């Protein structure tokens, strides 16, 4: 059962130097109660995808017509702003990357949580406050009845991220989008926050989209994974299958680039040569071709589509996508 289905999502930004196609035809599928990891390099469009699902894209960004975001029988790409307000923070919530700047410095954390509760639920101020204290306790903040009146500047980064999570969970959403929730935190706190997210997910039976560039986190936390490259999903499927046998050269290269414990300094790290192309000028053909060690001529000519593979779906001319002719071409190129 899919809870959220994103189809052909395209989010472009009109800039002075041209149209930036930050997200260019993304398909995603989030199953109810399951966790989808979205991985990719910086600039691959992960965060923009997340913001687009919430329709939090501000000018000069725009979601192109033809993009669909199906959630609970509604196409969020098409509903009015007012309908969206009822969904945001209520059915879908988001935890942002930067806990240090994602809380308003002039309001107490309690008031910020209470605001979220009272927007979506008809409760008295007193009940909302009780609920806020419960939530702070739920996310593991010590002495919540006192912390509820604290200002954000009186809290550490890890605590603020816990508060952000409490805010996001205030109305028990069906879907939580966590955009690199641990990037700004130090390693021990990262582990705590991830553990907290995992516990809460199981307890509240919600689905999670976890955006990260840490494949270790994906392996530990996620059921499904979507690998993004240059504004597109290049491979998706279950974590088990894809980590066992990646079907796209980019996924394979990503997995190979993780340093292993016990590696010596003499061994070179497997890096992917080159950089992500600019979103202003995506190359024609397969966008990874220039950095791909398997690329052959046809890769540069025509973009591959996502097709079924034994691990899920991948967009590569080497995986069933290829026509008879280009397969022959591959053979001769090799």
């Amino acid at each position, binding site marked *: 059962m899919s809870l959220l289905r994103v189809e052909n999502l395209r989010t472009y930004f009109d800039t002075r130097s041209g149209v930036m196609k930050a997200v260019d035809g993304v398909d995603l599928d989030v199953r109810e109660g399951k966790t989808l990891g979205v991985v990719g390099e910086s600039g691959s469009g992960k965060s923009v995808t997340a913001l687009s699902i919430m329709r939090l894209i501000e000018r000069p960004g725009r979601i192109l017509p033809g993009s669909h975001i199906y959630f609970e029988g509604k196409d969020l790409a098409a509903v009015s702003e007012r309908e969206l*307000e009822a969904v945001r923070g209520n059915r879908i919530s988001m935890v942002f990357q930067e806990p240090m700047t994602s809380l308003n410095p002039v309001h107490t954390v309690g008031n910020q949580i209470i605001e979220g509760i009272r927007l979506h639920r008809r409760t008295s101020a007193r009940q909302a406050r009780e609920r806020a204290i419960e939530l702070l306790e739920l996310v593991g903040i010590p002495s919540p009845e006192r912390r509820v009146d604290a200002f954000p500047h009186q809290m550490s980064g890890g605590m603020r991220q816990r508060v952000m999570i409490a805010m996001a969970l205030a109305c028990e959403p069906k879907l939580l989008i966590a955009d690199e929730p641990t990037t700004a935190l130090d390693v021990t706190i990262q582990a705590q926050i991830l553990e907290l997210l995992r516990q809460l997910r199981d307890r509240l039976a919600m689905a999670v989209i976890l955006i990260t560039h840490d494949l270790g986190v994906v392996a530990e936390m996620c059921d499904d994974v979507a690998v993004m490259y240059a504004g597109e999903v290049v491979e998706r499927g279950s974590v088990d299958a894809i980590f066992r046998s990646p079907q796209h050269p980019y996924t394979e290269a990503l997995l190979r680039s993780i340093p292993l414990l016990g590696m010596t300094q003499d061994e070179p790290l497997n890096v992917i040569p080159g950089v992500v192309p600019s979103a202003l000028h995506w190359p024609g053909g397969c966008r990874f071709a220039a950095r791909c060690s398997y690329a052959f001529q046809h890769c540069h000519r025509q973009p591959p589509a996502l097709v079924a593979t034994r691990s899920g779906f991948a967009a590569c001319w080497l995986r069933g996508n290829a026509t008879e002719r280009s397969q022959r071409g591959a053979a001769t190129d090799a």
Partner: protein
Amino acid sequence: MADAHPTLIDSADRPAVPADEPAANEGGIRFLARPRLRWNLPLAVGAAMVLLSIVLALAAPWLSGHDPLEIADASLSPPSAHYWLGTDQLGRDVLTRILYAARSSLVVACLSAALAFASGTVIGLSAGYASGLVDACLMRLLDILQAFPALLLAIALVAALGPNLPNLVLTMGLLFMPRFARVARASTLSVRERDYIAAAIGLGVSRARTMYRHVLPNIAAPLIVEASLTVTIAVLTEASLSFLGLGVQPPDPTWGGMIAESTSVMALAPWLALSPGFAIVFVVVGFTLMGDGLRDALDPRG
């Protein structure tokens, strides 16, 4: 076996570590405390001067034994024990008139600054938050308003509307409105990009509500500073207008009006011009110091 180089942990005189970090928060007072105003010298002096002016203006009837319109036999009498600052051509007590003039001057200055604050903030906030066409239109309108020399526009408007207190407040409010609109817009433009605004919208807060609940409190500091500085300009403008006969009308006293009346007898009775002049300087310096002090106190980046 003692270490050759004992670390801080081992040494007896290591600094005491507070047992528990939230200990200082016992009783919850720290948590409830708003970020406190950092007092500084200009702020304290300025606030004291402003407060003194207001108290003197309010207490005028009790401080002075005279009526501002009371005409004594002795005209142009120099400062004496009976008339502390002397009397004017008609024999009215100058000190009493200065105290009463402070009322109309402060009322006009503060009300017009308040009007400008309120309208300018709404316009600047909307322009900055809406951006695009709305922003461009509003800002060009303000450009037109600001293209006129301020005093000239004030003279023209007051002359057209008629010189009385409500018209003065309206005119000067309009005149000062663009200052607040610009400050509010500029601050809004920077605040709206902050993560917590996106987070609030992501929580389901409507854009209008985000504007007054999340943006407005964060742009308040520069606006408050601007308000304090605008009052000084308002005091000067009011004095200029009443000097020109466009302020509160005689026989009610105004500082500008008193200076105007004194010009013909300047050589005979210099105290007539000096004392209202000093009153103006006192109030202006007070509000300026307060504004400067507030800027330092509210804006950590200086």
